[in-house]
């Protein structure tokens, strides 16, 4: 089994330096591409590879890049942004790439930027990732010394600078248009779309935002071809993926595995199964903003469309497990209170609705719930969750664990209300 994203990573987790990265084929894709292939050729390979965004939505990367206007007479800037905000609860994968093999991200960024002919790149990274910030800055400076970044890269006439932008906090900065506002020094409110960033993004200029893991795939695709990348997946989707599991399993962690790996294999083999004395009751398949699935879904493959059909989303591909000794009502309360806190406050259903739902859930959890509360939760779920009622996807994502918990763990809610207490404590 091939593991392109993690093949260089070391047991002691020390970062791969430029020389080591290059000795295993690093920057070969840049060397053979910049000034030698046309941007259109690179775009075609990435399109053919069917690389889908690893940041949560699964949008095809090549298609996104193809929306960038390629007008050679336009002298203005274009931007490529790596989204390294990684704040989705339960998600711990981009950090791995940036801390242990930062050049993979830089190389992917150079190739992506070249494809859209961007001259400036930003890595928008959360402030808590001190170690990754240091390694990325080192990697960028090493690339300048080698001529992979800066003016006239490898004598091609192509120029690119990459800056590390350290965020000032708030989960909403990960939403790509909020991120752009934050990069512009403003409050991180999401923007109305259209116009899409591809056409009018940072300071009104064409901008592509991609997740760190998506960008890390690009050099491998350019080196080995679209068919190779497709063949890595064992289901419908292409490539490998950094899947992860947290919760009461024996060996929580993140592993690079083929796209389409069955959920059961993730839980039982890679995570070593549940800890002794704990049983699996359900799981959020791709971070805190995805719907619960249950034991009945364990044999599904982790593919975007399959998980979608099952009523959830693959999201970041990083699962959070609900065990039989953890109260589902309290777990949903934790998730909703997180999103209520992180709401940017721009639109009413999110700003007012989420705190209301949080209060109702809290009342149920502490034994003060009444039967009508379930109808309030359902109604609010439909209202807050409806696409189009809010300005961005935070609110619908926030409510997905609740609506699915009401479906799968309804008896728990009812029992709390009937017995006027939480029986898990």
């Amino acid at each position, binding site marked *: 089994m091939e593991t392109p994203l993690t093949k260089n990573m070391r047991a002691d987790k020390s970062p791969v330096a430029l020389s080591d990265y290059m000795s295993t084929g690093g920057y070969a894709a840049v060397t053979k591409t910049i000034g030698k292939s046309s941007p259109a050729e690179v775009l075609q390979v990435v399109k053919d590879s069917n690389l889908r965004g690893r940041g949560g939505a699964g949008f095809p990367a090549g298609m996104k890049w193809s929306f960038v206007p390629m007008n050679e007479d336009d002298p203005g800037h274009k931007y490529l942004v790596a989204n390294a905000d990684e704040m989705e609860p339960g998600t711990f994968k981009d950090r791995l790439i940036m801390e242990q093999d930062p050049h993979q991200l830089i190389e992917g960024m150079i190739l992506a930027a070249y494809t859209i002919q961007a001259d400036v790149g930003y890595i928008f990274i959360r402030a808590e*990732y001190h170690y990754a910030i240091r390694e990325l800055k080192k990697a960028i400076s090493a690339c300048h010394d080698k001529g992979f970044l800066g003016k006239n890269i490898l004598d091609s006439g192509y120029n690119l600078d990459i800056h590390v932008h350290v965020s000032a906090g708030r989960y909403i900065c990960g939403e790509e248009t909020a991120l752009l506002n934050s990069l512009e020094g403003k*409050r991180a409110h999401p923007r109305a779309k259209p116009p899409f960033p591809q056409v009018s993004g940072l300071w009104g200029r064409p901008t592509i935002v991609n997740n760190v893991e998506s960008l890390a795939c690009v050099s491998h695709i350019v080196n080995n071809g679209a068919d190779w990348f497709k063949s890595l997946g064992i289901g419908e989707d292409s490539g490998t993926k950094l899947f992860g599991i947290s919760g009461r399993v024996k060996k929580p962690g993140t592993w690079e595995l083929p796209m389409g790996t069955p959920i059961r294999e993730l839980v039982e083999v890679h995570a070593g199964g549940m800890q002794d004395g704990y049983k699996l009751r359900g799981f959020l398949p791709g971070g805190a903003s995805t719907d619960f699935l249950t034991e009945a879904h364990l044999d599904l493959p982790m593919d975007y469309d399959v998980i979608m059909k099952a009523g959830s989303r693959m999201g970041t591909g990083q699962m959070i497990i609900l065990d039989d000794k953890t109260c589902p009502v309290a777990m949903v309360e*934790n998730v909703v209170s997180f999103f209520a806190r992180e709401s940017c406050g721009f639109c009413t259903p999110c700003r007012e609705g989420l705190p209301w739902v949080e209060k109702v859930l809290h009342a149920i959890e502490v034994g003060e719930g009444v039967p009508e509360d379930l109808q309030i939760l359902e109604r609010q779920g439909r209202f807050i969750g409806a696409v189009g009622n809010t300005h961005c996807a935070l609110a619908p994502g926030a409510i997905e664990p609740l609506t699915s918990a009401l479906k799968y763990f309804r008896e728990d809610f009812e029992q709390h209300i009937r017995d006027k207490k939480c029986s898990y404590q």
Partner: protein
Amino acid sequence: MSAVKNDMINVLSQQEIDAIEAEIEHLPDRKSAAIDALKIVQKYRGWVSDDSLRATAKLLEMSDEELDGIATFYSLIYRHPVGEKVVMYCDSVSCWIMGGNKVRDRLKEKLQIEPGQTTEDGKYTLLPVTCLGDCDHAPAMMVGDDLHHDLTPESLDKIFEEDA
């Protein structure tokens, strides 16, 4: 906020002004440096006071209110004094499942403060933080720039002993 005096910028040190001007240099306009400027001020002073906020706004040629709107939006810009180190415990779902509340309660007890407060000796400020991306070692927290994980109420004692 009261009107800005002309000499207001003098509240900022030359070092701060130089660092902020250096950020502005590679941006399309002065305002775009707002967050960077607030971070620079905070780096030198630990937090952003009303006076330094007004001075920074003036330097960036924007209104105090607009800059304060930005400052108060971001969780890592402090508009109140904080301790020498900020203790940020993760309160997101993976840590919560793995006993994060017990860690939080022990922290409150140890530091004798509630989240949002600073210890009397000015050493620590306690704040919750969004998932630290360390979920396979939950519960996790940061003390200053250092990440600590696989926390138990007991392991906290050792961490603070070593930090003292």
